[in-house]
């Protein structure tokens, strides 16, 4: 009891049982995750592989003035913690460092258009996956037919077991090469994004709909659903007013975990369809041993992941007070 008096902050802020405290703790956790992950990546990619200045020089004789300027700006040769702080400081001003492979070209010039491209095609893919998952789960959750049930189970298992690049290979061979309906690769028209989005969405859709389906099945067995049915409400009304809101929260949690998978999927899909996004940038940077670019992509993806998880955590806490209100 005495221990909690040590905090000067008001009770509501530090108590995990209030919404405010919950928000605060979630944010602290998100920020510490961000710091740990970026520090780990920084140590691995800046310090371990090679001396940055040698890599930047790439065999040429560096201009001493330029070298001194880089030393000052990026803290090369300083203690690792100082280098990290300098890196983060530069990052906040939009400076991601210098590329080794492109001999000192600012990384931000590489990553900015790539990021724009990735966001452009990932949003329709994610939307497609969520819409597909909701539709599939709603049509199959309440079925009495054992055949439909069994078929859905197998379909989901197959979807779950098929990596994105396999989906891509099969779809490209059918729709692009055999039927000539869609382009094989590239980004020139919106039509070019159809196949990548579908390849991204299908495996995602399988795992999302599995969760939503289990949730809906559980909700349909609850007393309030039976009451609603007994009152004579239509199936649609039961679904939208009773079942979906109750199944939404676990679904939301899974969506936030799946965003991590989306980020990983970007590497594959972009390599396959030749989309100049961050995933393809990262893969080519790894092959070229261009560590600053790998580091920048890692930081951007970590930021995207941490921000989306935090958002979902806060939303979940807001929608369901039981998450933070319960005594534990």
């Amino acid at each position, binding site marked *: 009891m005495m221990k909690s008096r040590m905090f000067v902050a008001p009770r509501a802020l530090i108590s995990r049982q209030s919404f405010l405290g919950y928000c605060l703790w979630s944010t602290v*956790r998100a920020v*510490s*995750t961000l710091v*740990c*992950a970026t520090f780990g*990546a920084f140590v*691995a*990619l800046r310090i*371990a*592989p090679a001396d940055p200045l040698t890599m930047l020089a790439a065999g040429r004789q560096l201009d001493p003035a330029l070298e001194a300027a880089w030393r000052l700006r990026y803290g090369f040769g300083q203690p690792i913690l100082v280098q990290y702080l300098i890196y983060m400081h530069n990052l906040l001003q939009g400076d991601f460092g210098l590329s080794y492979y492109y001999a000192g070209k600012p990384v931000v010039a590489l990553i900015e258009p790539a990021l724009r491209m990735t966001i452009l095609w990932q949003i329709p893919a994610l939307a497609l996956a969520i819409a597909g998952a909701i539709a599939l789960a709603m049509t199959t959750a309440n079925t009495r037919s054992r055949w439909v049930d069994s078929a859905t189970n197998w379909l989901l*298992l*197959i979807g*779950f*077991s*098929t*990596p*994105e*690049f*396999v989906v891509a*290979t*099969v779809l*490209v*061979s059918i729709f692009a*090469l055999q039927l000539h309906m869609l382009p094989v690769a590239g980004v020139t028209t919106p039509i070019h994004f159809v196949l990548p989005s579908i390849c991204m969405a299908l495996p995602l859709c399988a795992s999302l709909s599995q969760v939503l389906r289990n949730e809906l099945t559980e909700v349909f067995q609850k007393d309030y659903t039976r009451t609603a049915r007994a009152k004579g409400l239509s199936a649609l009304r039961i679904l939208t007013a009773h079942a979906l809101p109750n199944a939404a929260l676990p679904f939301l949690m899974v969506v936030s*975990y799946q965003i*991590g*998978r989306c*980020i*990983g999927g970007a*590497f*594959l899909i972009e*390599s*396959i369809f030749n989309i100049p996004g961050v995933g393809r940038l*990262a*893969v080519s*940077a*790894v*092959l070229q*041993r261009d*560590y600053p670019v*790998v580091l920048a992509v*890692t930081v951007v*993806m*970590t930021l995207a*992941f941490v921000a989306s*998880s935090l958002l979902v955590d806060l939303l979940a806490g807001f929608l369901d007070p039981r998450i933070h209100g319960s005594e534990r």
Partner: protein
Amino acid sequence: MKIKRPFFCDTFAPALAVGLLVLTVLAGPFLVRQSPYQSEFAHVLQAPSLNHWLGTDELGRDMTSRILRGARMSLLIAATVQSAAALLGILVGLIAGYSNRMIDGVLMSLVDVMYGFPALVIVIVLVAVLPPGVPSLIAALTFVSWALPASVMRSKVMLLRNEEYVVAAQALGASRVRILFRHVLPNAIGPMIVLFTQGAAATIISESALSYMGLGLPTSYPTLGGMIAKGRDYLLGSPHVALVPTCALVLTILCINRLGNALRLHLDPRLQRFQN
């Protein structure tokens, strides 16, 4: 009799499939005469025939032996990675579940970070830094796989530490290590088997994805992911070069996932009731 049938269909059949798969892959060199590396430039991109059961690839190498070799490597990597991850996870889970709140808190926040974080991003960073080869690949994949076993083990230990037989062992003066390894661990091992199976499927997916992008094993080595990537160039004329390894990969993952689901149902009576 009616009780035994679901067990046969749901658990035994997938187990048999996975067993056959492992057996075929291990017996590969005895089943197929051709070497996976031998090029025959006179027989490039041949369709399946009696001589080459699954055809030949763009360098005239026998697809059957290459697929068997690639699948063997995939299974070997998956088994090694999951064994290492399970050992590490069990150790962390035991320590976290049976020690004071501070150690538990530190270990679990580490696990939370590792579990949620996009695995492929970490693997790609590690692959970029480590020297290429099988040990590095195994290390990178293990690094992203131990968190889930650890968190499951910990919650299991938390439940078991209040069981009467554990309290009795404490009262008899058994040491912590003895309690953990003789009384807690044997009763918590069930979920680990399920996680091992499901994790193996996930590892095969990650490994083949890395090989597909050219970030996994060296391209000279036959891998399923690498073969699919190469086969994409020949999809129009000889689709078997990409589609045969694709089928092999999906079937492998499917069998293992199905076994994982079956084991989960079998070991968790709560889920069984729910399904029926």
